[in-house]
């Protein structure tokens, strides 16, 4: 039996209010960022702020449409939507138009669309649908594989469009998987991988390998009851290193790195035999992790040099402190920090910002819109914006947790993850805490595609939430 619902009564007005506050604030800041005395009306359609007003108006239409559609529609059409978006991504890859070195736009008439923005929404739906299936065992290998495909297929296509930033957003869906029961160790491995990635780029390979060996030893000590055996094992390993070191010294004359690799391979071989005899599966795991980490370290170096484009490399290098070049890759971040920092505690006042307006900050209406907030509204403004986002995110988590169906809860978490990732990276890059990977600030940044995509993402969840009582448990 289904209860009738009343959208007007059941929609979460707190979220709606937060949404409109953010959108209007975004619009005012776009106005301030690209303010032009000759076209000083905020609704002048020849300027970005006039256009943004149109996008906002269109978003309201979009919201009404979403509200009119039955909530079951979204779960039902999750896969077709997903497949359609994948299709669009392929189209854009083949026939798309290049803007700022990213081939991510479809141009139809005078109208430009970025399918990549909508892919997040579709992926969230598909992931929710898949994970909410009955008897879902998230740790079954087959399921893990399917989840990986659902998430990484659009990410890979977007990566091929040369839009690395948008592709990285999909990593945020790990938060959803975590909430749905993905074991912490899997996340830890991911975390370990990230640390190794950074180490591989900043430190000599030998140090990274030593670190891996150290971590493996700690893991062994932590996971085994028989500490004595573990110590024996470590002792055995050290002896192997010593012997191989001597052999190398006498006849081979390779670097110590090769000695270390040879020692790990030898010890792993011996340990594997022991694991087979005594049937200790956890030992296999640790060996696999160690060897895998070694291979990973070498491939990171390779990927970094051969897959990433030069400007991405230098941005990562800059963030890691390897490259300090205030006129090069770090220039944008420096200008952005100057703009935000110059705002002081209370800001210079509406339309009084100079750093952003006079083109010192790049992309001031899109990726770096937060600079305008910082410059014109000061620390108070930035804090208010961050707190508004925080309230929105926590509110969404509360809503997600009150859902009766797995589908709507998972979808809600996907919304939270995507919004959070955008917020963290976008704001982080303007203040030098995250790499400059160029993704928009939700609801704030100029652009129809991104505003609609975030609006659809959010309001589909509110629509489902409004109908939560339809479903009786």
């Amino acid at each position, binding site marked *: 039996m289904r209860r009738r619902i009343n959208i007007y009564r059941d929609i979460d007005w707190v979220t709606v209010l937060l949404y409109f506050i953010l959108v209007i604030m975004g619009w005012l800041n776009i106005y301030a960022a690209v303010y*032009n005395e000759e076209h000083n009306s905020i609704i002048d359609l020849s300027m970005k702020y006039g256009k943004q007003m149109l996008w906002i108006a269109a978003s309201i239409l979009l919201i009404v449409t979403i509200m009119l559609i039955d909530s079951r529609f979204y779960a039902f059409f999750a896969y077709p939507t997903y497949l359609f978006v994948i299709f669009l991504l392929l189209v854009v890859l083949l026939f798309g138009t290049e803007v700022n070195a990213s081939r991510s736009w479809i141009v139809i008439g005078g109208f430009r669309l970025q399918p990549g923005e909508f892919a997040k929404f579709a992926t969230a739906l598909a992931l929710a649908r898949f994970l909410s299936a009955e008897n879902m065992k998230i740790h079954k290998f087959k399921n893990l594989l399917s989840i990986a495909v659902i998430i990484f297929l659009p990410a890979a296509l977007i990566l091929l469009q040369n839009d690395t930033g948008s592709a990285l957003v999909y990593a945020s869906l790990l*938060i959803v998987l975590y909430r749905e029961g993905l074991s912490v160790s899997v996340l830890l491995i991911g975390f370990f991988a990230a640390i190794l990635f950074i180490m591989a780029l900043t430190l000599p390979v030998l140090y990274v390998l030593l670190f891996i060996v150290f971590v493996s030893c700690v893991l062994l000590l932590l996971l085994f009851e028989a500490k004595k055996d573990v110590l024996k094992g470590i002792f055995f390993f050290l002896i192997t290193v010593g012997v191989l070191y001597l052999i190398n010294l006498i006849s081979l004359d390779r670097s110590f790195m090769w000695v270390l690799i040879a020692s790990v391979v030898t010890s792993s071989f011996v340990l594997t035999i022991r694991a087979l005899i005594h049937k200790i599966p956890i030992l296999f795991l640790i060996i696999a992790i160690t060897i895998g980490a070694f291979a990973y370290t070498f491939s990171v170096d390779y990927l970094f040099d051969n897959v990433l484009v030069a400007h991405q490399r230098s941005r990562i290098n800059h963030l890691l402190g390897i490259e300090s070049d205030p006129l090069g890759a770090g220039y944008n971040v420096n200008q952005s920090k*100057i703009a*935000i*920092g110059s705002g002081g*505690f209370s800001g210079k006042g509406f339309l009084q910002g100079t750093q952003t307006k*006079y083109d010192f900050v790049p992309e001031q209406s899109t990726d770096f819109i937060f600079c305008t907030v910082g410059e014109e509204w000061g620390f108070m403004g930035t804090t208010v914006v961050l707190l508004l986002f925080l309230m929105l995110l926590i509110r969404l*988590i509360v809503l997600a947790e009150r859902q009766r169906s797995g589908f709507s809860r998972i979808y809600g978490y996907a919304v939270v993850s995507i919004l959070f990732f955008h917020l963290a990276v976008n704001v982080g890059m303007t203040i030098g805490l995250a790499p400059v990977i160029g993704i928009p600030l939700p609801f704030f940044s100029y652009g129809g595609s991104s505003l609609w995509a975030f609006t659809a993402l959010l309001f589909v969840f509110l629509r489902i939430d409004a109908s939560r009582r339809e479903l009786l448990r």
Partner: protein
Amino acid sequence: MQQVSLNTRKYVVISIIILIIIIYIAKLFSIQVLDNQYKTSASSNVLRHITQYPVRGLIYDRNNHLMVYNEAAYDLMVIPHQLKAFDTAALCEILDVTPSYVDAQLRKAKNYSRYKASVFLKQVSAMNYAQLQEELYLFPGFFTQTRTLRKYPDPIAAHVLGYVGEVNDGIVENDKYYKSGDYIGISGIERAYEHELRGQKGVEVFMVDVHNRIKGSYNDGEHDRSAVPGQSIQLTLDAELQAYGEKLMQNKIGSIVAIEPASGEILAMVSTPTYHPNLLSGRQRGVNYRKLQLDSLKPLFNRALQAQYPPGSTFKVLNALIGLQTGVVSVQTEYSCYYGYHIGSFSLGCHGHTSPLNLIESIQHSCNAYYCHVYRNILDEASDAGIVVNYQKWREIARSFGFGKKLGIDFPFELQGLIPESKYFENIYKSAWNSLNIVSMAIGQGEVLVTPLQMANSTAAIANRGFYYVPHLIKNIEKENGIDPKYEVKRYVGVDEEHFDPVIEGMYQAVHGGPGSTARFAKLEGIEICGKTGTAENPHGEDHSIFIAFAPKDDPKIAVSVYVENGGYGSVYAAPIASLIIEKYLIGEVKRGWYEERIFNANLLSREKKD
């Protein structure tokens, strides 16, 4: 149990979010409230980097005669934000532009940025600039920026010098040095020595206030870097000889290449039709370039190293040398010729001359039949290993003279000509091929193609009796010691020194011998010229006239190749042109007035249009 533990995870997620937000707020507090560095950076000033363009290096000829210099030009820039209402009509009058141009440029500039400078008009002429400077105060928002343009005192050597132009997007993306709007050498020497000529851009760092006004030098100029001027370079070219060569070739299509055999230095490299190099410099460059590009005579095409022609009978010299080297003929070998080479149903004609001839006479009279014998001997008798091996051996020696490969000149877009692999013939004749199939290559017809540069280079190798230096155009670079050592290495050809004398004697006799010698028209009193005529069949019209020569015989100072398209027999145009070039270079002036007049006045362009 499972569900309970999962429920606690929401707190973990919330905590992470709160943690990140707190970190961000703390960081914002630090840069917005605690740290004053950003405020001073912004409130007083923002840095502006103004590029200092270096002057491009000058180019001189071998006698230090200036060939390329720079002339100041002024770009008119505009900052839309600083514009005040101005008299458009007055501006149009000063600059010679239309009001619609002004509108379009201003719109473009505003679209780019209201606060950064855009180019409003490139390369304002010196005359307009004088007036503009006086009245610039009437047009706030406009200012001028100095750039330099390439200028050429003499209307010569356009192909050799090449031209500079603005970098395209591809270059900007691949080379960090270049920014949009920079100039780069696009062809010729300008391209080959771009790195030496361009110098190093400098930068001046200024502090700019919020209204974009320059407030002074940043940190007392500590971060300024002055521009390093480009290095001047000296070419091996002799400007006078080059100019003379271009005059000889006027109204003709073709090429002259002159090399100093003892060094590989290129003395002249003429390709006609040519154009005035000033056409491709300055504001009219784009218009002129399109005009030249559409010209049916292809003036932009550098025939000296990009035209691939059949060498005609000049190739007999090479075959004589290879014949001697492989031992299939000797200096005494005689063959008779009855108006050509006839075997079975095959027939290759020859002109009338005495018969039989020995090797020296065969060159002197340019006998076709003789070289059909020589070439077939090379292919059939040089060894018992069969035609494929013998052909490849022949090809290897031909390539050692620089044919069929890029020579490695310091100049872009060199072509390699063609000396086919034996496989090429195996494919055509389905492996059942014999020396008769390709016998036309004996006299430089058929599948063989060479460039004028390669012809001149092989002539230099003959003049040197067995070696050459890679031909090059660079003589000296201002701040470097010497030139690329690869131009100082002797490259030995695959023919021993002793075989050259009889062949050179044949070339000497061709010019200086009695009646019937093919190149008597090239004779020059007092200089011993060795030469060989060639005539290449041209299916599209009149034959091409070819001549290779060097002089003096015993101490060669110059080796020349001349190729005149549609010029008829080699002796008609190419030989006298080569002779005049040698006279000009060795004697310094030409005394045979009637002789050079005939060449100056000859117009062969109409022959081209027949086709």
